């Protein structure tokens, strides 16, 4: 039974993935990607990792794809232009096909094996589900855990910095840029967004009071 469901889910994942790769409209691609995630979550469940199935749905489908969709809507993306076919577009499928073929030849024991692989029910008990995972995470793999959390922090900072609209550069940066760009300074920052933005003459209340703020 599980096998049947597995095949259905696998086929679904493949179909959805193909749609992601081959459809023109990015919104459709996003939705199909969600489909892939769902199918995969199902498969995780089938092979005995319920916790991860839940995590997959929550994080991937629930957070990451939401982000993607937000961005697509924010930037109002339309249909993608087709490409004139340079060499790259022809080589890529070749490499992909070759890799799949190779991997399949290596891994391709499609035969039924005699080992006893765990099922959903067994997975619940064997590693004690989420409990086993949590214990491992906080003891044996603590370093990885901490590093990842640091990474998350840095990521957050980076995202905030990158996505901020650059009206208000830092005070020092302001002065430097002003000195460098004085003749061409039009004080017009909102219409021409550029990485090195034109500094505006308006004072930045956040930055001026460096000495007076602290107490």
């Amino acid at each position, binding site marked *: 039974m599980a096998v049947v469901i597995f095949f259905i889910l696998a086929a679904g994942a493949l179909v959805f993935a193909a749609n992601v790769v081959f459809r023109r409209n990015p919104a459709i691609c996003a939705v199909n990607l969600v489909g892939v995630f769902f199918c995969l979550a199902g498969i995780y469940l089938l092979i005995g990792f319920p916790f991860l199935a839940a995590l997959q749905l929550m994080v991937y489908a629930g957070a990451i794809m939401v982000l993607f969709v937000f961005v697509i809507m924010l930037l109002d993306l339309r249909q993608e232009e087709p490409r004139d076919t340079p060499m*790259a577009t022809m*080589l*890529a499928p070749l*490499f*992909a096909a*070759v*890799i799949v073929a*190779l*991997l399949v*030849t*290596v891994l391709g024991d499609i035969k039924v094996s005699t080992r006893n692989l765990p099922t959903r029910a067994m997975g619940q008990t064997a590693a004690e589900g989420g409990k086993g995972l949590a214990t491992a995470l906080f003891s044996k793999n603590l370093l990885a855990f901490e590093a990842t959390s640091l990474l998350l922090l840095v990521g957050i900072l980076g995202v905030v910095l990158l996505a901020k609209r650059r009206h208000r550069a830092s005070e020092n940066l302001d002065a430097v840029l002003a000195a460098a760009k004085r003749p061409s300074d039009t004080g017009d920052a909102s219409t021409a967004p550029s990485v090195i933005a034109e500094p505006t003459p308006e004072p930045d209340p956040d930055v001026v009071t460096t000495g007076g703020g602290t107490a």
Partner: protein
Amino acid sequence: MLLPAIILLPLVGAVICGLLHARGGDARKLAGPIASSAVLLALACSVALFLRLGESAIVYDGFTWISAGNLHIPFKLTFDQLSGFMALIVTGVGLLIHVYSIGYMAHDEGKAKYFAYLNLFIFAMSLLVLGANLPLLFVGWEGVGAMSYLLIGFWYDKDEGWPAKAGQKAFIANRIGDAGFVIGMFLLFKTFGTLDIATIAANPTAAAGTITLICLLLFVGATGKSAQIPLFVWLPDAMAGPTPVSALIHAATMVTAGVYMVSRMSFLFAQSAVAMAVVATIGAATALLAATIALVQRDIKKVLAYSTVSQLGYMFLACGVGAWSAAIFHVGTHAFFKALLFLGAGSVIHGLHDEQDSFKMGGLKKWMPTTFVTFLIGGLGLAGFPLTSGWFSKDEILWKTVNFGQTAGHLLWGIGALTALLTAFYTFRLVALTFFGEPRFDPEKMHPHESPKVMTVPLVILAVLALFGGWMGIPPVIAENANWIEHWLEAPLAAGTAIWTGTHPHAGHQGEVMFMTISSVIAVVGIAAGFALYRRGPERLAGLTRRLGPAHALLLGKWFIDELYELFILGPLALLSKAAAWFDLHVVDGVVNGIGRSCRRLSDLSGRLQSGHLQHYALWMAGGTTVLITWVIIQAWFQG
């Protein structure tokens, strides 16, 4: 202290003249007197040392010039009988020519430069004859070569740059000889471990083959400097320079440097019969060859130039038969009469406003009496008229040649005698064409005049020397123990004469008298024939010239030796250098540039890898991954 002064005084004079030249204007008039005074002082020093010279040489050992490993070369000068004699000639005749030049170059813009060069020449020549080791001698050797180049090409703008080309020819021919000289020096150092002449002379023996090779190499240098076969071709062309230069450098002094060097190294040459034979043969051959060419030349200076080559051949003939003192004797007398002849020719050219073609002269004895008389005396000396200086020295050489081995000695004597006949003939042909007969120019237009005192006085002094200078070498036939020069030069040549075994005096006093008579008869006959045939100008012999057409053309064309060199040596050399230039430009540069170009192209190509398109980079990664996976699988498959 006097010894280095001989060298330094002309050097100082040269510097002063150079400064005067740089200053320009009237100051340049001082150059002549200053230069002459420098040489006069140098002469005084030479005379003083000469009188003071006793048994052993006067040596000046100065600073260490080169000290590198085994090679130790001090700045050391030696004034012995041989070098002293040469120094006297150099400074003495040099002084006379300096004084003469004051008059000759009076109207020339570059006269201060001229006198600077002339003084530098005296400096270099003195260094050559006074050097105690071969490197110093070589420095002087090169120095005179350089000065010769500068002075030949002194009027480098005249005649579309011909004097400059002549200077280059002289320098290059000298250079070829110098290559041999230098290699000889290397070999000498390798064999004896030192280049000090006295040290080698004390112990000169070594392997026979090596000695012969060294001597031949040194002699190659001598053929270059002293204009012998095969490198004599520069001397006639050197007449492009001012006449006093021809007198000093290409008659009296520089060209005799080769003779001096061979005599200095007599102890080496004496050990090798082969080398001596080569020297003698080349000397004799050159003497005859040059004399034949001089027979038909029209230009006064060219006749005298070939005559010089011929007389130098005599000197080397003497060296080759072991008669080094006779060779040096002839150097001295030749300096007297040849310088005299050249200065006389200069006087004629000066008086005729730069006319040099003797066919266009004639009857000048009327207008230039002093020049005529002195020139006549010089001519008698050159021809070997009895009791002139030339007669004594030439006869000495011929006598020593006869006293050499059997057939060879006789053959060489025959060549020498024939050459003497030709010499007498062409000399008086020249005298007749220049001073006798009807003028073949327009006296009204040319206004020939005698030269000023400053030019004629040196002529007179030289004439006296040419007449009576032979008395320093009176042979024993005429008076016992009166051969001063042979006795004087005994000490420096002792090593050589001791080793030399080639002389076999096979005839006693009667033989000597007989040969002396033969020489005198030859001289008189030649003089008479030359004079008689050309007394009334060259047209008389036009018929004869036509009948002897091919022979005449051969001689007039200098045996076409220059053309042969051009065809067989210079032509291929030019082709070779063109090929080398092509190779250098296209292959060597090509490789270098090619490396640069290919690097550039490679970098352009590599640069295109970075297209900026992310997906291209990713594609490369994908490709790499594919290869890796394939590789791993293959490996596993082979192992499994």
